[in-house]
């Protein structure tokens, strides 16, 4: 089945609530229901708090590194909120918050960056794949998981996340094409935060937009203001519904901004100007929805305070978890390489055990 090009073209970015917190004149899209917007705000407050807490913990040496999604929280919140329990999320290293909002224990998500192990949660429990660091590779896994559900006749949808830079990798293109050919229920969600470490979007692509990249594969593209959680809920929600209805994959590009450096190891002043950062500060996703909700009478001080307290609790949980030193278990090195340890690994584990015993005995 071939797709008509008009149906694939991404329109202008969808904005439902503008940077000042006012409802835009866009009447092609309905505003999500009030309770869903309040829920999104509540998650945004927690999301922001997790980002800032994790960033502080890096400075205290409790985390090796933290790629913060500060500024991108609306994308994180919406990606998690539009999914049902049986759907899957495929996050990257920057999507800690999305994984937490899907229900994964925050301390578990941060295990990778704390350095105890490569991943700190069971992917099947909340249907969240391990966070992917090799760029774009997870997108093909997402297609496979979606196709498996499809083969079994299950209604699950897969939300696959990546950044603007990752759209240059070959795997991104293969994933889009595979998803399209197999009609797999995948939503490819690109958080275009304008940079891949120091490299600006202009060096990744001269396409009219990243969402246009779907056209060549027969996948419809959509663009959305990545700091407007209402628009994100609307666009991503529709993409998920469409995939669930058997209409195949979609590519959604959100325009947003990484307010902090790539990680704490990076110095963003080397490649971007302060006034650019300041301009995006004015488009802050948390303040925007808060202004709207207060103006619409959907949020009062007491509720806002309750949400802040809830976020504070999560932050405390994160602090406690990361301030707890876990004694590494040497056998973990050897236990999970294969389903069963090989004789060679038995030998190596024994060598290490001998060494550690000798060390203990004070040799």
């Amino acid at each position, binding site marked *: 089945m071939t797709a008509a090009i008009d149906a694939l073209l991404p329109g202008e970015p969808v904005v439902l609530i503008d940077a000042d917190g006012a409802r835009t004149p866009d009447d092609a899209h309905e505003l999500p229901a009030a309770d869903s917007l309040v829920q999104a705000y509540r998650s945004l407050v927690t999301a922001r708090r997790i980002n800032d807490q994790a960033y502080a913990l890096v400075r205290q040496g409790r985390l090796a590194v933290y790629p913060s999604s500060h500024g991108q929280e609306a994308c994180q919140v919406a990606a998690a909120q539009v999914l049902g329990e049986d759907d899957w999320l495929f996050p990257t290293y920057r999507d800690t918050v999305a994984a937490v909002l899907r229900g994964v224990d925050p301390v578990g998500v941060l295990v990778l960056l704390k*350095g105890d192990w490569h991943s700190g949660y069971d992917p099947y429990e909340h249907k969240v794949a391990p966070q992917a660091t*090799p760029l774009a590779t997870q997108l093909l896994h997402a297609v496979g998981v979606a196709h498996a559900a499809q083969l079994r006749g299950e209604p699950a949808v897969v939300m696959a996340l990546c950044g603007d830079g990752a759209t240059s990798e070959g795997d991104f293109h293969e994933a889009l094409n595979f998803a399209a050919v197999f009609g797999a229920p995948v939503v490819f969600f690109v958080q275009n935060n304008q940079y891949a470490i120091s*490299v600006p979007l202009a*060096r990744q692509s001269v396409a009219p937009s990243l969402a246009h990249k779907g056209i060549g594969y027969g996948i419809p593209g959509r663009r959305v203001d990545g700091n407007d959680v209402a628009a994100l809920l609307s666009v991503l929600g529709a993409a998920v519904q469409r995939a669930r209805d058997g209409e195949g994959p979609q590519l959604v590009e959100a325009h947003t901004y990484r307010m902090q450096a790539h990680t704490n190891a990076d110095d963003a002043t080397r490649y971007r100007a302060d006034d650019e950062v300041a301009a995006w500060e004015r488009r802050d996703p948390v303040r925007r929805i808060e202004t709207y909700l207060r103006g619409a009478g959907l949020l009062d001080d007491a509720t806002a305070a309750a949400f802040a307290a809830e976020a504070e609790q999560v932050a405390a949980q994160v602090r406690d978890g990361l301030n707890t030193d876990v004694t590494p278990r040497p056998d973990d090195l050897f236990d999970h*390489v294969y389903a069963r340890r090989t004789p060679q690994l038995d030998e190596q584990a024994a060598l290490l055990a001998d060494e550690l015993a000798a060390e203990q005995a004070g040799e």
Partner: protein
Amino acid sequence: MNQKITMAQALNQALRDALHADPTVLVFGEDVGPLGGVFRITDGLTAEFGEDRCFDTPLAESGIVGMAVGLAMNGFRPVVEMQFDAFAYPAFEQVVSHVAKLRNRTRGAVSLPLVIRVPYAGGIGGVEHHCDSSEAYYAHTPGLHVLAPSNAEDAYGLLRAAIASDDPVVLLEPKKLYWSKEEVDLTAAVPGIGRAVVRRPGTDATLVAYGPSVPTALEAAEVAAQEGRSLQVVDVRSIVPFDDETVCAAVRSTGRAVVVAEAAGFASVAAEIAARVSERCFHHLHAPVRRVTGFDIPYPPPKLEHLHLPSVDRILDAVDDLQWEDA
């Protein structure tokens, strides 16, 4: 002229000098332009030589290496950076099927004077995919030169030699040594590709190491000396081509050898070295050649890496096992 600089600065200087010396040298990769690379190896090069000579590419390793092949076919000498060891894997197809083979496929009509720089190996508390010792993949692929410097002076010399080479070179840069400061003579004769060196004289046994394991081997030799045992340390430097002559002469002189490397030991460069030494030095050996390597496991997370990496103690235990008559 001696100066105290880091390996990172030595590599930066090598690129700068090469860009000056030869207008066909190009430097490109991810974040190597205005940022100067995540390890700052290309710091200042875009400012000094312009966007045409040192530039950022779209984020795609296969694209970077594939385009380097074309540039090399058409008159340039590309020096590309893979951001980390494990992020070079998307370029594997280009490396093994094209970079390594074009000369052979064309009976020598096409040579590929290109350099693939790879910050590699562990010991920096890095999370997964940032600490791989990937030398065996490259060393096992005929057609590639594979180099691994262990200090700033060699890093400079080997990178200059790699850029001057008409064969493709994979330069493995031990990232844990990037910031160690050393006295360096940048005007010293470039060691050249294919030459090992005896780093420390010794008479009782020989430690053979390369890249990040050389400082560990030297430290082990220092400790052994205090315990009355004289260990010689050979720095392989050039994994491919391998300097059988220097390594075997060293081992024959002591009659005992331990090969030290971070990579998993199975089917590894350390395994190859042990086999070569055993074959060539059999009649001089008092004990089987031992290997001290990483375990046969994926590179562990930061909190466990110290258990995995070859340590001074593990090296000295292996030395103790070399069938000493007086033991």
